[in-house]
């Protein structure tokens, strides 16, 4: 076991921290929110220049040659700065889909495009009726000539409105809840019959609902094997859980240090509130909870590339619960320790709070995974 970063990882971490330090102060972030995209296209280009958009891709595809650990470092830094750009959707979710299931041609075409900042993706899997159940897919894809025709709808697709293409699931055989018969498609968002309605989510990021009516997709745009999409979906979700776990750690670090700082400066009854033991112990509890969460985020990262599917799923589910519970405690405590100012829109802590709230629900919440783990108790 070795928990230390290697030199390349430290360099990566330093360069992101420097960039975000210059460009992602909370006040600067407010300006990015005012753009039509809801994030900064200029910074997206800068991420590309720095190589961040190719972090997990092989060098032959213009990538950095990193893996889950490098994604962890990036996402943790992004969590601290509350970044708005569609990195999770494009690089982590879309990138994982292509790396796990893409043909050589698909990878050669799309991975360099992502790395260069020319292509944004989103993962369109969840449907309104499905809640967190990955097998609950009723969107259909039917054979038609040399291709497929898609009908159905996808719900709360993270950064779906910014995406150039969707990694979209549809049922090519079987019934709702069947594990077999789900197929993934790469669908251009300008295809006739595809309609998107974008909206803000609680964390000020963007999402979209996607409606598909007679959408034609070529055979070449099937991702992976027909009918075997669920295993790919699981890999994408696992990568997403690990990445957002790291992001939540970054957000917790920010909230914890803001709360600590506040407790040293805010005075009540003639003394800084941090001099009261009840506040000190709450901060100590936040710290301990965050560190336990950090351990779980590390576990998720370690397991993303684990070869054995059941063990991988089980450990990542554990991490999902652990990080979600930790983030909920730390963020609720951060607002409580700030008092009234923590409730305001102008103050940063509430924004971190809401990002953690959204992360907790992405890909399934702690209650959902706890129940699944409970079913497996032996």
């Amino acid at each position: 076991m070795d928990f230390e970063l290697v030199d390349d990882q430290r360099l990566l971490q330093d360069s992101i921290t420097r960039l975000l330090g210059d460009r992602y102060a909370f006040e600067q972030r407010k300006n990015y929110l005012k753009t039509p995209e809801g994030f900064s296209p200029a910074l997206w280009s800068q991420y590309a220049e720095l190589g961040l958009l190719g972090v997990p891709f092989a060098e032959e595809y213009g990538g950095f040659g990193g893996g889950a650990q490098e994604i962890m470092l990036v996402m943790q830094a992004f969590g601290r700065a509350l970044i708005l750009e569609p990195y999770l959707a494009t690089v982590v979710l879309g990138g994982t889909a292509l790396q796990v299931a893409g043909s050589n041609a698909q990878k050669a075409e799309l991975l360099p495009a992502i790395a260069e900042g020319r292509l944004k993706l989103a993962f369109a899997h969840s449907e309104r009726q499905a809640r967190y159940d990955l097998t609950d897919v009723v969107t259909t894809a039917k054979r038609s000539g040399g291709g497929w025709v898609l009908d159905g709808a996808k719900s709360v697709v993270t950064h779906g409105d910014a995406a150039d293409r969707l990694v979209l699931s549809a049922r090519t055989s079987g019934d709702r809840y069947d594990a077999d018969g789900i197929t993934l498609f790469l669908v251009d968002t300008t295809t006739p019959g595809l309609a998107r309605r974008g909206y803000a989510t609680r964390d000020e990021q963007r999402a979209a609902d996607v409606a598909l009516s007679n959408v034609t997709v070529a055979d070449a745009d099937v991702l992976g094997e027909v009918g075997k999409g669920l295993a790919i979906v699981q890999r994408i979700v696992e990568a997403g859980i690990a990445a957002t776990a790291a992001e939540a750690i970054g957000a917790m670090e920010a909230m914890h240090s803001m709360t600590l700082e506040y407790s040293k400066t805010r005075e009540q009854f003639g003394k800084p509130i941090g001099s009261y033991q009840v506040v000190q112990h709450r901060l100590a509890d936040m710290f301990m909870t965050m560190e336990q969460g950090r351990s779980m985020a590390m576990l998720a990262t370690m397991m993303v590339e684990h070869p054995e599917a059941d063990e991988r799923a089980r450990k990542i589910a554990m991490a999902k619960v652990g990080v979600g519970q930790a983030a909920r405690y730390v963020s609720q405590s951060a607002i409580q320790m700030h008092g009234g100012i923590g409730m305001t829109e102008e103050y940063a802590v509430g924004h971190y709070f809401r990002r953690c709230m959204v992360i907790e629900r992405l890909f399934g919440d702690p209650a959902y995974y706890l129940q699944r783990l409970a079913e497996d108790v032996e």
Partner: protein
Amino acid sequence: MDLRFTPDETTFREEVRAFIRDNLPIDIRDRMRLGHSPRKEDTVRWQRILNQKGWAGLSWPKEWGGPGWSAIQKMIFLEENQVAPAPELSSFNITMIGPVLIQFGTAEQKQRFLPRAANLDDWWCQGFSEPGAGSDLASLKTSAKRDGDSYVVNGQKIWTSTAHQADWCFVLVRTNPNAAKRQEGISFLLVDMKTPGITVRPIISIDGSHHLNEVFFDDVNVPVSMRVFEENKGWDVAKFLLGNERTGIARLGKSKERVKAAKAMAREVNANGRPLIQDATFRQRVAQLEIDMQALEITQYRVVSAYDKAKGSGRPDPLSSVLKVKGTELLQATTELAMDVAGPLSMPVWAEELEAMNEPDDMLEAASASTGSYLFLRAASIYGGTNEIQKNILTKAVLGL
């Protein structure tokens, strides 16, 4: 960063597991599996087997009979030993007085005491707490007055675990009542429990066991050669000892063992017409505990791995306070789980009356023992620096408040 165990670490775990399986006496293992605390003779017998193997010294250097393990290997050993379940090594001997003597002892003290401590020929106990000095240890009052080549010790210690079984006690005494700071007038003495003037009185715990004692010192003569380190510098020794003590304090293996025992019992007992193990609420409670144990396991390896990297700089990692708090919370939660599974059978006391019935009833015995651990381990968040004190430590060391 590589969070997997190295092949060497995995091989080591297998070696430890096999040794314990092949060498732990069956009668001890069976008593422990039923959830009983080990008897004194169980602990002695097992520690001697481990010492024979060269494993009892844990973190001691090879020169004093230690196995030369890394901190990670030490954690692996402790966990396997707890999960077995086997009696734990005497912490007073192995993680307290041993390292203290290695760090601060004279050549004569080392030669005289270390081999006997490793082999549990001497059973040590710790004379720190006093009626007026619990979490606030530096306010201790037991006095030692110099009289030629001896100190004359007077005063009282309390919460002295296993003093009634002990051959020796390491004691913090006040040698300078007029020191500018309270911490500066304290010395660290080694006291033979057979010395005239020592009286041990039992304190029975809420589980009915006799583990704790009061120890009274009435003009007890202690040779100056039994002082460790300089006079009035005993606080440095105590701080070293307490920092050292915390590395294994999460006792994660014990929590794992309790969950395992609870699940085994839950297969045997019925709830609403089916085995309790099938109950959704019970399963969710187990799943939550397994998640919390998993998180603590990684945190523990983070602490231990950092310790290996720093090659033991001597300063305790503040994260070890996280281990203490979270580890003992889990220990309490897991013993609570086992007791809850026992249901109505958690109420009877497994003592002379039931033992005398002379019919083996493993379920009742295990059920009663699970309540015993639940009651006894309420102390876990109190001993070794209460969990509230740990939060104070975190407040200072990590938060800088």
